């Protein structure tokens, strides 16, 4: 089981802040493909990966990173703090 978190407009497009799911994906990109295949709202949220960032267990990572051992994946737009 993996926990997936969504923030900012990714959260709004998908319509929920977090979910726990069973996945056979071995990389972030494969997880994204699984999500996109589920429903239109996921396809909409993940339409432009260049506009998204991903964190694995709360560390910024990349879409080709492996998911082995990862418990928490978060998707969000580029940060705008400060």
């Amino acid at each position, binding site marked *: 089981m993996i926990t997936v978190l969504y923030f*900012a407009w990714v959260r709004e497009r998908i319509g929920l802040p977090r979910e726990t799911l069973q996945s056979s994906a071995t990389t972030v990109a494969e997880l994204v493909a699984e999500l996109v295949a589920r429903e239109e709202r996921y396809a909409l949220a993940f339409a432009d990966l260049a506009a998204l960032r991903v964190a694995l267990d709360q*560390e*910024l990572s990349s879409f080709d990173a492996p998911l082995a051992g990862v418990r928490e994946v*978060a998707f*969000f737009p580029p*940060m*705008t*703090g400060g």
Partner: protein
Amino acid sequence: MRIAVQSQPFELGAETEAFASAASGAGAIVTFTGIVRDTNQRLAAMDIEHYPGMTEKALTSIATEAQARWSLSDVLVIHRHGRLVPGEMIMMVATAAPHRADAFAAAEYLMDYLKSRAPFWKKEIGADGAEWVAAKDSDEAALQRW
């Protein structure tokens, strides 16, 4: 080092005074404070979303890197989340160092990284709707000077 991520306001004056008083041996203190600005008189509020857990980790990691790069006696980062109105303070950083060049460089470094690498997202609530603030290319480009 102190990292605070909070919804409640902070007292800039009291925080600055306390930071400077505690930084014994420092010759230079730099503070930066970010304020919600109403650029066109149409901003009703600013919502700041964050990623609890990762936010504290990211800020600690940025501050630790600053301490490794420059000779600093202390670092403070306070960042608010939740709903803020124009004129309210969003965040502050403070650096204490023996010399001014280090205090300035570290404060600018903290701000540059905090802007683009700490998981905060701003949404502007205006008279005609709400909109997520887009990240600026210039903020990403600012990282390349370090």
